[in-house]
């Protein structure tokens, strides 16, 4: 057996090992086929006219077509979460409305929120999220990249 085939077999063993030892563990989900519609989100002052005491809430909205590759976990009972990493410059709150395949919800940066709970019956989960963003305009001083990710927790048998 040459080195290439040995390497491929090793990857196969590694994946099988992941599936076999998944109890109470969290795995990232491949959502590389998700697509954000539109470019940079133009944040607007919630109240363009500030109140007599400082008011600086910024709001924005975007739409994302979510495509989660869950083929590796078909037939398993699982919870899927959307996660937004902590934002060092400005705390962010995201609220999204789904079309029903996944759950609507909200997260603050540094947290995660449930988007699916149940048995996985298909190789992929797809939905469209309309996401509303809130940020503190006193702290959001430059363009910022928000990296939303998904992770899966498998129910212990």
């Amino acid at each position, binding site marked *: 057996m040459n*080195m290439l085939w*040995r*390497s491929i077999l*090793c*990857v196969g063993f*590694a*994946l099988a090992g992941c599936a076999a030892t998944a109890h109470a563990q969290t*795995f*990232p*989900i*491949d*959502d*590389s086929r*998700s*697509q*954000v519609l539109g*470019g*940079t*989100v*133009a*944040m*607007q*002052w919630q*109240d*363009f*006219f*500030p*109140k*007599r*005491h*400082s*008011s*600086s809430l*910024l709001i*924005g909205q*975007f739409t*994302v077509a*979510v495509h989660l590759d869950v083929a590796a976990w078909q037939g398993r009972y699982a919870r899927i979460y959307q996660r937004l990493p902590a934002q060092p410059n400005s705390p*962010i709150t995201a609220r999204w409305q789904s079309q029903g395949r996944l759950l609507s919800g909200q997260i603050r940066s540094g947290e995660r929120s449930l988007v699916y709970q149940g048995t996985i019956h298909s190789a992929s989960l797809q939905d469209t999220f309309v*996401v509303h*963003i809130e*940020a503190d*305009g*006193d*702290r*959001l*001083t*430059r*363009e*910022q*990249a*928000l*990296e*939303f*990710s*998904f992770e899966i927790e498998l129910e212990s048998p």
Partner: protein
Amino acid sequence: MHPTRIAQYSLLCSLLVSLDAIAYVVNIGTGTRAVYLRVGDGIRAGAANYAGGGAMATGGAVSLAQVTVAAAAVGNSAEQAMTGNGRLTSDYDDFTFCEAGQIYIGGFFRLPNTANQNATLRVNAPANLVNATGDTIPISQIRWSSSGIGDVPPHPIADGTFTGGTQTLATDFLRNTWRETCHSFVYRNQAIVAAGTYNARVVYTLATP
């Protein structure tokens, strides 16, 4: 270590790194900058106030503060209250913020910034009020006091007197905060001057960082 074992570890590591990097990325921009100042009457677009979703507009008549001094009182140093003709309500919420005869001054600026940066309010005044025949009264004969209905000191603009030229009225128009006050103008009446109507125009400027 066996060469095959080395290959196995390196492949596994690269697989995990690849999965960790998965995410959809959204870039969000900052808030827009804006600056607003109303002195005297001013106008706005539509009937709704700003708290009710109204929109700003530029324009309106130049407000006038005036007083007529009786001949017997000219130059006797008895101060004469001047009467302004601008609107008395705040465009923020239509609250009647000024007393009758006062001149409204209010504004804000929007700036996405972590520093407590302030805008600066200045006024530029000519050296004198002038009548039709060229007689003058020093602009320093006019002073003002600040107040606002329901407001308590310190007011956004301190009491003062025109000095002629550019003078700074406030350096603490904090970003993202509405600031407003009302001015009562007073003619100090400290000199005997020729009869006539004396005019001067002062211009207020709100400068942002």
